[in-house]
């Protein structure tokens, strides 16, 4: 949860895995790094190694097999030492690959940055030019460029760089468009920065990781393309050795002396493979999502590793009874609890408000009840959640999933993110019904219309075919509530259901929830940061701070006469209509004390 991450910025850096150890954890990438390191070292040290002159011909010694005297890897058709040519050739190939990548990255990124930041006509013209480059098969384009410039290693390098420009330009443009509309760009403009300064000092640093990732994944490809052009005789010219041209020259001898072509072929394979493996590893390390250590997909149910095993059934008159719940998050090698010994109970037809500031663990508590906390990194380490006296957390995975949406339903903060944008809202409600009940599709659709009417959507029969984006925020939240009601749940857990809504709409949604609760006898667990909402809706309230419940009781009593200092402070900090400027004078002493 982002809230949790924000609440504890001070965890020791040692707990987080460093980039290096993350990279080394990836075995394939480590293998690639080692192979590439050896090849690169040999290539760099080529002038110092006791190698024969790679271009010295010795017709008497032609086509010696590998392991012959004086020639470890044999000789080619002109009697040149293959080992020597291989190492010098690798040097050329790596150098060309790297320079081509650098040129393509520079030109492509520049085009992408400008197109993405300027938008409009500039963007259109630049990207259409890029489209034209992409419309040709790359090798054909490279051939055409070399044909115009004339054969030669340098020209091959330019050709390959040009062919790869679109790849960088498109990637960088996509990221830049997203960044250009961010607030810090506006803020820089207001600070007096010019257009160009914003592009290169504000946007570029944020695009850089993408450029590095793209480079690391394209170097191998470029080396391969260089080899391809040399193979066709358009790159390195004799007598210069290059992996591609060695392969090309050995091709005609494939049956008499296979080693002449197979050895450079293996070298190309080893080089490109190691670079690609390493590139994938680098990408994984630089991706912030993967960095947090969540390299795996979250599991269907939160991992449950309770230190003590509570009773699986108890006698209770509450429909939801939570006892001693503790949920922790793993970060790197250490785990820290986000929710500590939380206990509360909700009876049928009752509404409990769970109130707290961001990072207080209120959402994690709600999600833990049905094992919905993303795992990894979440682990439920203690406690039990009894629904009608039965512990949910002792159930099997299928048992827990059967409860979700049926007995217990969730309503989330922003229905725009929880509703699927490409399905009609009616179908989404029907789907929720079909997931738990054996009814026909038509029947489910009919019930969906009923539900929409119940949550107060006018013209439900027509609106059933609307898409989420065609509805207002308030209507979408009504659909979210209709989905929650689809299977006649006993408990509804509403996580900040009105936070994203305007006040006038909020009032209507709260009325609806109240209405449903009294009519259907629902138990409602309402999570919010707003005392006003609690006062309006909840019978009981529990105040959370740093993962613990610091005060709980009947709403009226807690609000009128809060006992815990934190509740008192929280209440004082809520401005009330009618207070006017007296509010600021009222809270001033609160923080004046804290400052001293």
């Amino acid at each position: 949860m982002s809230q949790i991450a924000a609440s504890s910025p001070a965890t020791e850096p040692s707990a987080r895995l460093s980039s290096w150890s993350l990279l080394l954890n990836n075995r394939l990438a480590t293998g690639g790094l080692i192979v590439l390191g050896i090849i690169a070292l040999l290539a760099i040290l080529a002038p110092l190694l006791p190698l024969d002159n790679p271009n010295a011909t010795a017709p008497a010694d032609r086509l010696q097999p590998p392991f012959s005297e004086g020639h470890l890897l044999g000789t080619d058709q002109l009697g040149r030492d293959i080992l020597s040519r291989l190492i010098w050739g690798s040097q050329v190939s790596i150098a060309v690959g790297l320079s081509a990548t650098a040129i393509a990255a520079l030109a492509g990124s520049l085009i992408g940055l400008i197109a993405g930041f300027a938008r409009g006509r500039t963007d259109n013209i630049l990207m259409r030019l890029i489209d034209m480059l992409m419309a040709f098969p790359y090798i054909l384009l490279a051939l055409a460029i070399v044909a115009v410039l004339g054969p030669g290693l340098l020209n091959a390098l330019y050709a390959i760089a040009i062919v790869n420009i679109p790849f960088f330009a498109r990637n960088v443009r996509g990221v830049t468009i997203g960044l250009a509309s961010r607030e810090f760009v506006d803020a820089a403009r207001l600070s007096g920065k010019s257009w160009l300064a914003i592009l290169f000092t504000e946007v570029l640093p944020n695009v850089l990781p993408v450029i590095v990732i793209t480079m690391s994944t394209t170097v191998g490809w470029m080396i391969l393309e260089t080899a391809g052009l040399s193979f066709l005789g358009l790159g390195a010219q004799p007598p210069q050795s290059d992996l591609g041209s060695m392969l090309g020259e050995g091709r005609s001898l494939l049956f008499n002396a296979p080693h002449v072509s197979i050895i450079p072929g293996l070298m190309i394979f080893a080089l490109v493979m190691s670079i690609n493996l390493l590139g994938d590893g680098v990408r994984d390390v630089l991706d912030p999502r993967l960095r947090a250590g969540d390299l795996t997909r979250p599991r269907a149910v939160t991992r449950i590793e309770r230190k003590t095993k509570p009773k699986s059934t108890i006698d209770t008159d509450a429909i939801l009874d939570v006892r001693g719940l503790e949920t922790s998050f793993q970060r790197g090698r250490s785990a820290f609890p986000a929710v500590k010994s939380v206990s509360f109970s909700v009876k049928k037809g009752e509404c409990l408000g769970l109130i707290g500031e961001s990072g207080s663990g209120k959402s994690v508590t709600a999600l833990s009840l049905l094992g919905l906390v993303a795992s990894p990194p979440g682990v439920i380490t203690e406690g039990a959640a009894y629904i009608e006296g039965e512990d949910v957390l002792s159930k099997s995975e299928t048992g827990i999933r059967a409860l979700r949406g049926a007995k217990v339903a969730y309503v989330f903060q922003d229905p725009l993110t929880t509703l699927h944008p490409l399905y009609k809202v009616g179908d989404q409600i029907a789907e929720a019904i079909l997931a738990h009940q054996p009814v026909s599709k038509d029947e489910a659709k009919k019930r969906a219309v009923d539900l929409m009417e119940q949550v107060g959507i006018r013209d439900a029969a027509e609106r059933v075919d609307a898409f989420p984006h065609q509805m207002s925020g308030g209507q979408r939240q009504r659909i979210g509530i209709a989905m929650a009601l689809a299977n006649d749940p006993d408990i509804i857990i509403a996580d900040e259901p009105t936070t994203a809504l305007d006040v006038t709409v909020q009032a209507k949604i709260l009325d609806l929830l109240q209405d449903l609760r009294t009519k259907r006898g629902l138990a409602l667990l309402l999570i919010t940061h707003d005392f006003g909402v609690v006062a309006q809706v909840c019978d009981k309230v529990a105040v959370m701070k740093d993962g613990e419940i610091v005060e709980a009781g009947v709403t009226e009593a807690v609000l009128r006469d809060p006992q815990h200092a934190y509740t008192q402070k929280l209440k004082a900090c809520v401005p009330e209509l009618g207070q006017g400027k007296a509010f600021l004078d009222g809270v001033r002493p609160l923080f004046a004390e804290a400052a001293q």
Partner: protein
Amino acid sequence: MSDAIVVRDLVKTFGGGRTLFGGRTHELHAVKGVSFELKQNETLAIVGESGSGKSTIARMLVGLETPSSGEMIIDGQDAKELRAQGSAVFGRVVQYVFQDPVASLNPRKTIDNILDVPLRLLCGYDAGKRAARKKELLDAVQMPSDTLERYPHEFSGGQAQRIAIARALAAEARIMVLDEPVSALDVSVQAQVLLLLDDLKRAFDLSYLFISHDLAVVESVSDRVAVMYLGEMVELDTAQTLFRTPSHDYTRELIASAPRLESAAAE
């Protein structure tokens, strides 16, 4: 004394341009002829729901958007002329505080770097003066001086908003447009930031245009309140009068909808 901001018949329409095939794109009238003035040392609040055009007004006032028509006079100067003189001139007259403080700070820059820009480009101070000003600014927003070496993600929302306010102060503009400055913050942090804004207003002799959707917050900070509804300003009055005797239906609905603590205690 002249008014800090005078706005006359301000209109902003998005879209409506010609497409490639000669048709017209969909037009959206975000602001439909709004007039008001912000007096010196006053806090004028604009309230309204999402989509009512209040943020568009704010963005036009600081030069992030260009009005479709109408007149804006900021600190006695016409906004068109200010814009023609470049963003550096505009930034010295009026500054802007964003709703989401973390998003308004570049994640890859240190706070030192972020505060340096307006001091260098807008005020033109030399390195020594800049260093001294940065310390003063951090003092003013009550942040420790080791803040400078750190990156935005190391701060909580409230601390980040203090830094964002320090950046706006750095320009030494006397007019501040605050666009939902406390909406993204927790209540206790919200109260602290409101206090800070109140103190700064007195210390630096500022005028605030305060945009918010939270009526209670607005009432606690503002002298006068304007209500926006679907791109129009339906009511503008002193805070006291407006909250006690709202004249427009929509204002009444807004006030009635605001959740209250008393309602529970009274039941």
